[in-house]
């Protein structure tokens, strides 16, 4: 997955540089820095409340940061960036009363990067009905529809917040399958999770967070090959230290 990184002499990546953020007096991010390359799956790992979602929101300019900088392919996020990067939060970002087909129509209306062929393909893969209302979907199917709306955009980067959170085992398996498919290949992915078992073998880079700071950032494959450790092994070392 690490082949597509270099284009025109510049690395394609998301750069998070020393960002800080406070909620009132509470410091939620205390100088977070990491990079996520195109063509790789980067996983932000940490228990709930350590700032994973805040980092995602900050990358998408959905919440202001106190200091630091976030660049996507060397540029700050602006309106054009949303044709290049998408965010799939843990709850579907569409009106509840919409049918799936209306939600797709909405996306098609606003995004030039919308790929209807891919959307139809995912609809089929997830066995979702176009005419189903979002409010009437099961939790697993809502997560799938949410994923569909994000992944059917032809963007370079995809951010996913807890895609496996609180959904049934079969839906989890289906979603995990997406990560090995062409839907993800060649894109840069940042995923947050506190339960990495479903995708441990797919992760290229792991970023371990705690209390708003990065405890460790490492190449999963390298650690696997050189030290013979899994991501969970490293997590045990870091979080129990």
């Amino acid at each position: 997955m690490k082949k597509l990184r270099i284009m025109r002499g510049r690395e394609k990546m998301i750069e998070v540089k020393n960002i800080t953020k406070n909620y009132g007096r509470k410091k939620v991010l205390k100088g977070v820095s990491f990079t996520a390359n195109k063509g790789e799956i980067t996983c932000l790992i940490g228990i709930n409340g350590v700032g994973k979602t805040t980092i995602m929101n900050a990358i998408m300019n959905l919440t202001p940061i106190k200091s630091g900088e976030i660049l996507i392919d060397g540029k700050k996020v602006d309106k054009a960036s949303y044709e290049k990067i998408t965010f799939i939060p843990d709850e579907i970002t569409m009106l509840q009363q919409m049918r799936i087909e209306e939600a797709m129509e909405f996306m098609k209306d606003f995004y030039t990067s919308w790929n209807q062929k891919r959307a139809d393909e995912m609809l089929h893969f997830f066995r979702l009905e176009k005419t189903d209302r979002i409010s009437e979907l099961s939790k697993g199917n809502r997560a799938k529809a949410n994923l569909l709306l994000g992944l059917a955009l032809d963007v370079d980067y995809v951010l996913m917040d807890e895609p496996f959170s609180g959904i049934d085992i079969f839906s989890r398996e289906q979603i995990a399958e997406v990560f090995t498919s062409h839907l993800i290949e060649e894109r840069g992915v940042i995923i947050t999770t506190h339960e990495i078992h479903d995708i441990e073998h797919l992760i290229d880079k792991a970023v371990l967070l705690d209390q708003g700071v990065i405890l460790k950032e490492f190449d999963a494959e390298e650690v696997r090959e050189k030290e013979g450790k899994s991501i969970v092994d490293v997590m045990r070392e870091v979080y129990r230290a």
Partner: protein
Amino acid sequence: MKNYLKLVNFEVNRFIKVYLSLIGITVVLQLVGTFLKSKSYLKEANWMIYKEGVPVQEFLEMNGYMDLVRVLGSWWFIFPIIICIAVLLIYVFLIWYRDWFGKSTFIYRLLMLPTARINIYLAKATTIFLMVLGLVALQLVLLPIENKMIDVMIPDEFQMALTSKEAISSYHPLSVLFPNYFSDFLIYYGIGFMVVFLIFTAILFERSFQVKGIFYGIIYIAIMMGILVAPIFTVLFTGKSYLYPLELFYLEIILGILVMILSILISRYLLNKKITV
């Protein structure tokens, strides 16, 4: 521009069911009200004239003529207008907060659209304006119909033949909602729309800075109001005016436009730099 229009279309569609209900309530209550008012006038006239033997002229002196003003002053007419105003006032707030609260995380989608974020603000404002103007237009269509109903139901000798325009002018509260002159219409509705911009910006302050934001929003509205009333207060308190009334009027219009532009600029800044989902 294209995205702005798409967003307007989208926002209008989101509210259309409630809006059509408002239209339905207004049409039904006002027409039923006109019918019942006319009917009760007729009943009274029949009773007095045919049963009690009161001469027509005396009846008219006692009870007056039947005209649209009787309907305008009744709850049948006023109640739906109050409901429409109340619902639209609530919707000025709800049009933003519904994207944040409840099960909806739709604000994520709106803010991640590949378009200038100020278009979201302008589209929501345009939706409110269209809804308001739509209801005004509906009322202007309904009034002649109601007048015609009276005309059909009441014998000529019992009618004060007023046009709907004359009826509105003689019933003061309505002449604010439906002014006689276009310039008055522009002023009253201009003030209304400016207030919508001010509230929208205050909401964005709250959405950006939470509890502190409520405070900022209130201060912002107070300052803007201060700017607007300053020239008038100067005249009132000093007793001196350096401007002719017409010049003062133009100054107020310029200040009003400035306040609107400022609201849009501040909102653009908040949406781009400070807003939080």
